[in-house]
């Protein structure tokens, strides 16, 4: 078995987000979270539901097992039986996320997607984030447009939870007294300094930071031979 790539550590870190979630819909946005969700479903979280990105619920081999058009998908969000991993063009230390635009909303310097479902997601089901290129442009002191709601703005939101943020450098969570972002694990080969350097706010860093766990031989086989044999994960995160 050849050396584990950074992209493969990212897959493992994303898969771990869905550990112990039970019979809920895993909604990954982006390639590596999608591989991670399928890996979790094939191994330690067999009860997860997956979609084909359109209106069907499918087994990992693509066999349809249910119907989930957008109207039902949005209703399922309110029911809370879902854990989504969204992208983030910007994210701040309390987990406020922006995918709408950069600059002044009234006339943005750069128009992006729009708020999409981030406001409803963050108030109703667990919402994690995936950032394929960790940098000060993404991890910012203050986001330009709050789409996904962070902990400092979630008072009274009974179903608000951000389990984790996974980047190409490590895994982050909000298990601090004030719910500010904390470094939870480093992908092997990455240093704390590197993460601090690439983060635009004060990050909570525990005295000892564990490495992101190693994949098992079976997990590596599934990633490399079953889920992503074309190796497209390397296009999202290089080595």
């Amino acid at each position: 078995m050849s050396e584990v790539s950074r992209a493969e550590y990212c897959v493992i870190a994303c898969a771990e987000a869905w550990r112990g979630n039970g019979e809920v819909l895993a909604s990954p946005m982006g390639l590596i979270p999608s591989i991670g969700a399928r890996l979790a479903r094939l191994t330690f979280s067999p009860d997860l539901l997956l979609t084909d990105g359109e209106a069907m619920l499918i087994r990992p081999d693509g066999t349809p097992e249910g119907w989930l058009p957008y109207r039902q998908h949005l209703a399922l969000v309110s029911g809370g039986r879902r854990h989504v991993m969204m992208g983030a063009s910007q994210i701040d230390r309390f987990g406020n996320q922006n995918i709408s635009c950069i600059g002044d909303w009234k006339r943005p310097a750069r128009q992006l997607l729009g708020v999409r479902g981030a406001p409803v997601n963050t108030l109703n089901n667990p919402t994690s984030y995936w950032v394929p290129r960790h940098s000060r442009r993404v991890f910012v002191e203050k986001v330009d447009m709050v789409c996904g709601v962070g902990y400092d703005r979630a008072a009274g939101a009974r179903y608000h939870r951000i389990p984790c943020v996974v980047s190409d450098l490590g895994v982050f969570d909000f298990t601090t007294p004030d719910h500010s972002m904390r470094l939870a694990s480093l992908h092997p080969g990455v240093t704390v300094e590197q993460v601090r350097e690439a983060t635009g706010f004060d990050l909570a860093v525990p005295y000892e930071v564990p490495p992101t766990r190693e994949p098992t031989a079976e997990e590596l086989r599934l990633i490399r031979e079953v889920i992503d044999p074309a190796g497209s994960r390397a296009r999202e995160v290089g080595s």
Partner: protein
Amino acid sequence: MSDKTMTAEQVVSRLQSGMTLGIGGWGSRRKPMALVRALLRSGIDDLTVISYGGPDVGMLAAAGRIRKLVAPFVTLDSIPLEPHYRAAREGGALELMEIDEAMFMWGLHAAANRLPFLPVRAGIGSDVMRVNPALRTVTSPYDDGETFVAMPALRMDAALVHVGRADRLGNGQYLGPDPYFDDLFCEAADAAYLSCERIVDTAELTKEAAPQTLLVKRHTVTGVVEAPNGAHFTSCAPDYGRDEAFQKQYASTPWPEFAARFLAGDEQAYQSAVGEAT
């Protein structure tokens, strides 16, 4: 029973500048593009457009027809950012009511149910509240006391939607995996115009397809247009997928050049120009 068939031009002749117009589909999927193209050929502008936005919004924005947009996103799906919409926003060319996908859906439900609003657990805490100062909240009258956004009804003067089959009376059938919100658009509008790949006899609709494919009911429809390939270049499953090559061309060609090449003539000219281009 009245035959509601008409041409795309007849649909557009019933629309006016300044109207609020709902457009069905989702992103770059089953958009009523033949009707949008007819709209582009008209002089109608100053529109308020309500849409899960795709190239419908991109084209109308590029042509300067939109005064105000109500949308949670604008995307071409396989090309995440709609280039013409981006240019319009970055140039400050349109007013925007940016709301969440679920808020949008409940706004359609409210309109279809003749309710002034519906409570939605979405928006609070986000900047959707900052950029839409007119949005109000409502507190549960029961013991939980939770506060919600009171999502206002998204009523519209007219709706444009595209489905796979329809009869001449306005019964519309989708044959793909997702109905999107096209029935709600029709119910939320004062007048709804339904284009379809093929007009068939009523009995034909359920000959092979399941009854739940009958999405749009005729009492909500004002006009029916037969528009083969009428969602092009967006997808209309299972009749055709998205024309990715053409969408790429649309996204990478300067608008005046694209419009001159593909939108100067009628729908037939468009379809033959597409044939020559691909």
